[in-house]
Structure formats: C-alpha cells, structure tokens
C-alpha cells in the first residue's frame, strides 16, 4: 500500500514536471520574457543539477545508511515530542495512573515506570524502592501475581491497614515491589490508609487505579501529586478525556494532570481533541517487540522504543529519583 502511494506520488511529480516543461516550451514562442528566462537559466540549472546529483551520489557512497539491528523495529518511527509532564518533587512521590479506555496500557506503564526507577534511579546514593499497586488482570496472572492475599487481608482488616500489608507485596528482581489488587477490593478510604502506610516504606508509590469507582478515583487523585491519564490514539480515548479535562480546568488542577497517549504509530493520527485536552502530554510509541511488560519490562530492552519513551518520561516525572544519565537516554 505504501509502495503504491509512493509510486503514485513520484509519478505525479514527474508528470507535473513534464507537463510544465511542455507548457513552457509551447508558450515560450508567445511570451518573449519566458523565452529569455529559459535561455538564460538553463545553463545554471544544468550545472546546479549536476552538482546536486554529485552531492547526493557522494553522500550515498561515503555515508551508507545504517540498517536496523536485530530486534530493532523496522516499522516507521513516529515523531515523539519530548514529554511535558508535571514533576513530582515530594518525597515519597505518589503517582496515580488512570486508564481512559480498556487495554490502554495502564498496568504496563505503571510497572515499567517502577522498574525504570528501581533499576536506574538513585536516592542518596542508593537505588530507590518503588512500589507499584497494579490491578489484577491478564498481565499480572501471566507472571503469577496473585491478588488473593491482599483481598483476604482487606476482608480481615475492615477498617485498618497496618504495616504488615507490605509483606504482601512481591519483590521484583529490579528492586521494585508489586502489590496486586483485585478490582472492587480497594475503596477510597482503604486507599487512603494504604497509601499512608506505603509512603513510609517506599520512595515512589505508583497506583494503577481501576476505573468506575468515583470515590476511589478521587481518593487516588487526592493521595497523589500527579495523575497520569493513559489513553490510546482513538476516538474513544478522546471522548473519555473530556470530562477529566473539564474538571481539571474548572478546578484549576490541570497542572497536576499528564496525558499519556500510548501506542502511537507513524501510520495512525492522534485525534485533535485528545491532544488539546491537556497541556501536559507524553507519547509512548507502539512497540512491535514489546510483549508482556511484566515478563521483561520494556525499559530493560535496549531496542524498545516504548522503553526509551518511558525512561524519558520517568526522568521528567520524578527528576529527583530517576536516572540522570541512563543508557536508554539519548
């Protein structure tokens, strides 16, 4: 399809060029100025053309184009603007992540952010210890994360969350910890209690917030310093972002929101409405080689475009904790 477009485009340019040349030749008889102009300009034109072709040939011979290495994506690269996401300076940093539609990539993003900070971040000369509260789902089940212990804990502790809750979090080899939570188990009150415990033990708390429960969403927003809304370049996300945008502008809270558009590719366009919804925006490119983020996080794959984008995002989002010079960073 793309090759077809290219052929049509080049053929059209050639056709227009030939047509222009014929038209100029025919009309030069009647328009003496044009005749004079052509007579005086063809020599410089030929010389310049030869020089240009020479330059192109020289460059092509001296600087051969680099080819994608094995594992590197061969798809066209989308233009990914540098992220403009609000900074979290508070310690510990608490960040809530909300999806604008199903399968938008909240869990993957939350986990990758946590791994990035744990693997490459630095706090007082040591690696930080982030925790990622993720929703139970297909991603978590593939790596055997079980939401049951936390569910049981909540059933047995109806109105309190003690320090022992951190024992339920699983440690990832990167140093970050993951607490898997089934949908419907957390409510606004419990989230407040949980975050007050987590903030005493961890440097960064990332909450992958399930949709639907307004109280829970509000509590997550209150508990966090920055809320990231994760959407896809689709009309559904554009529609879903509107209420968030309206509320944030109405209450003057837009500086606390960041919109993440996930799976951006060169071939799809992002709805204008989505881009205009928030001033703070970050794009995560689509990654053909991404796979399950919980198995091998994207930020640990050198060839991953999404991993690079998340590294940049982390550096911008939590500058005090994130790596200052990462091997992923440009």
């Amino acid at each position, binding site marked *: 399809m793309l090759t077809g477009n290219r052929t049509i485009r080049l053929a059209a340019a050639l056709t227009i060029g030939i047509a222009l040349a014929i038209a*100029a030749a025919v009309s030069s008889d009647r328009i003496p100025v044009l005749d004079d102009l052509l007579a005086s300009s063809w020599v410089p034109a030929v010389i310049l053309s030869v020089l240009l072709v020479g330059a192109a040939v020289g460059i*092509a011979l001296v600087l051969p184009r680099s080819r994608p290495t094995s594992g590197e994506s061969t798809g066209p690269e989308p*233009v990914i603007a540098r992220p403009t996401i609000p900074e979290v300076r508070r310690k510990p940093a608490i960040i809530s992540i909300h999806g604008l539609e199903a399968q938008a990539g909240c869990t993957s993003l939350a986990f990758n952010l946590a791994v990035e900070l744990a693997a*490459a971040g630095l706090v*007082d000369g040591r690696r930080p210890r982030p*925790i990622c509260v993720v929703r139970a789902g297909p991603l978590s089940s593939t790596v055997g994360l079980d939401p049951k212990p936390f569910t049981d804990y909540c059933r047995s502790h109806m109105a309190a969350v003690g320090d022992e809750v951190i*024992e339920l979090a699983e440690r990832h080899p990167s140093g970050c910890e993951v607490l898997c939570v089934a949908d419907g188990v957390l409510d606004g009150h419990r989230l407040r209690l949980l975050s007050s415990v987590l903030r*005493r*033990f961890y440097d960064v708390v990332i909450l992958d917030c399930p949709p639907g429960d307004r109280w829970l969403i509000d509590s997550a927003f209150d508990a966090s310093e920055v809320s990231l809304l994760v959407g896809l370049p689709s009309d559904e996300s554009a529609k879903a972002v509107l209420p968030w945008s309206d509320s944030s502008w109405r209450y003057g809270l837009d500086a606390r929101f960041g919109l993440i558009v996930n799976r951006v590719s060169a071939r799809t366009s992002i709805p204008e409405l989505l881009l205009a919804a928030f001033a703070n925006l970050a794009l995560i490119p689509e990654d053909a080689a991404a796979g399950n983020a919980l198995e091998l996080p994207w930020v640990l794959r*050198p060839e991953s475009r999404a991993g690079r984008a998340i590294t940049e995002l982390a550096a911008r989002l939590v500058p005090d904790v994130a790596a200052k010079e990462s091997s992923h960073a440009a």
Partner: protein
Amino acid sequence: MPHELIAGLEASAVVLLVLLLVPKLGVDHLRARFSDLHSGRRRWLFDPLLPRGDKRAWNVALDAVDVFEQGVPLYVAGRLAEQRSAQLYLERQGRWGDSPKALLAAHLKGAINEAELHGQLKSRELPLPATKAVAAKVEARPLISVKWWLERQAMAHAMAKPNGDGLGKRARVGPPGEGTKDENEAEDTEEAESATAPRADPTYLRIRTFGRIELLQAGLDHAPELLRKKVLAFIWLYLFVRGLLEPEGRVDRGAFCEEFAPGLSPERQRKRVRDRLDDMFNRDLPTALTSRLITDRTQLRLDLAKCSIDIVRLQEIARHCGAKQGMLSSDLAAEANRVLDETEGEFLPGWEEIETETNGGRGGAAEYVRTLRQVADTARVDIMGALAANHLARQEPRKAIPLLEQALERQPEREDLARRLRAAYLETGQHLRAIEIQKDHALDA
C-alpha cells in the same frame, strides 16, 4: 533544430532542477525529526532502511528513487543527521552492556542468577537493587523495673551512637523505608543533648530559622550578609533545607541547575550556577558559610555537622516529650517551654521573596520549605500537647488549657488534643465549654 524543442530542453533543465530540490513526500515535523536525530532520540529521518537484495543496480535505483523523492538537500541533510544518530546509537549500545539494566535483563532472562547479578553490580561499583521492605517488629518491653529498662535503653543508645556530632541527622525527616527504624532508634534518651557544650568550638554554627534567620559563629551573625545577596542566599538556604530533609542532603547538580534557573538551556543553567558558586567562594560570602558548601561535578550539599539548628532541636524535644506519654521531668518541661519560645514565628521567613527574586518562584523549593513548616508546626503542636499532658498529670488543668487551645487552633483535626482539652475544661468546672468541644470534635460522651 526547431525552436520549441530547444525551449523544451531548456525548460526541462529548469524543471529537473526544481524536481531535484523539492521534496515529493510529506515533510511534517521536519524540525522535530532533525532535532531528534541530532540528539539520538530517533534513528531515521523517515523510514528505516528495509532489507534489500544483493543486486547492486537495483539498490542504486532504489537509492536514486529515495533521492528523487526527498529532494537532494533534504536527502543530504537527512543522511548527515542519520549518521550522527547512528554514532550515538552505537555509543549507547556500547554503554548498554555495562549498565545495570542490561545486567538486570540478563538476570530476568535467566542468563545469570541473583548472586552473579549482585557480584557484577558490585564489581562495577553500581548500587544493588533495593531489598524487600520489611515492617519493623515492635518488641515487647521485658517485665523488669522501668528504671532499669530506661537505663539499659540509654546505655544501648549511647553505645550505638557514632562519634562526633549527631545533632542534625537524628532529627531529619528520614528516607522512606527507614522511617520505622528511625523512630525506634530515636526513642528515650532521657534528656536532650546539651546544646551548649559544642559551641566552645569556634567553627560551631548556630542556625536560627524561626521568626528571623540568624547564622551565628563565634558571636558573629552572618545572616544579614547572606540575605543581602538574594541569589546566593537562595543557593545556601536551598541546600540547607535539603540537608534538613534528607540524610547527607546531596542535591544533584543538574536538578539544582533546573531549580535555580528554570526555563534556560542546560548549558546556560550550568553556567549561571557555576558563576554564582564562584561568586560565593571567591568574594561574596564569609568563609563561615562557604566552608560548609561542598560541591563537585555532579552534586552539591551543605555540611551541617557542628551546627545547632533550632528546627532540629524542636523535633528532638517533640520526640522526647511525645515518648513520655504524660508527666515530664522539670528539666525537660523547661527545655520544651524554652524551645517553644525560641521557635515562635515562621520557619525561614522571607523565603518566598528570595525564591521569587532568584527563579520567579517556578521551582519546587517552596514545596520543601512548606514541608518543613508543616513539620515544625506539627512538632510545636506535639510539644504543646505534651506540656498540657504534663500539667494535667500534675493536677494543673488551668495551665494546660491555653496550651491545648493554641494547639487545637493550629491543628483542629487532632482528636487527642480535643480530648485533653475537654478533660481540662471538666476539671476546671467549665462544663459548657467541655460540651462545646465535644460537639465540635464529635467526641464520644
């Protein structure tokens, strides 16, 4: 030769030039594409080079089509930019092998085990990943005389205490994950450390931050000199605040540059910080202040050893008083009253003005100062509550009432204080006020 043919050839030459110059594809975000190539964020200007066959003529034809499609100037510029990007990519690939992420990825893929991962990280002098967070176990007090137990605790604390001045560290807002440990460690040294003994040292700096800023060394106050130069005051006080909030108080130089001069290019930010630090060291500030400034290429910090700092003292006293849960010794009560008097007023007054003059208030420093103001406020309220509890325990409810009223005014959500105030009102026969406070704070009857 007919005239039309000659004119046609002439026109063809001009059209060929135009076709060679003008791109025939969409060139949206061209500037961003070049910028990304230059910084290595992007690998190719447009599409990656797809695998081609071995036929040389065919490949030359494909290259010619690329040139024609992009136009020669764009093609040449793109190729040069791609070359730079490829170099950066190769450099990054070269660094990747030694990075903690690569080692971690190898571990996750099963190529190395955890012990090997830690060994390799250590051999590269890289920090190890954080260990699993563990909740501190609260040990039950053995059933022995309280007096003996306190003596043993004090002895254990004295043995564990490192040499030198520990004033600053213990009172700092500890890093997350160590909070519970710090709390346990900090308990129960009977009386506060002597604040006067170390001051015989001429290098000892006494820092007063409440109500007005004072930096006293050997009887000389250096604060007016510092505060006259707002920009230098910002640097010194910012590092001071970070030193209070974090152990060691190391501040990444890049982050500080962004804080100091937000919105400028990194080069200009670094230059501005370098120039101001030169000013500080070379002429503008007394040695008493600059000798505590420790800078290197990556970090800045303020050495807060051999200092007495009023906010640190405030927190220490709050902790000592809080640990007593009731009656205080007369020395501790007197010290608590003295600290309350000394810390009257706002923490770091005039900070907003200094910050606005330096970076237009666009940095995150205000948040740190706000945090410390909250910490100080809470500590003051805790001390007031402890003093009030002391008065109640000594059957002096009238003395407890003003303290509790003042504390509740600052932190009305403190139910423990409201309960004490109600008790004090009841004991002094002010039943209506007791009922009022009960209603206001929804206390149980």
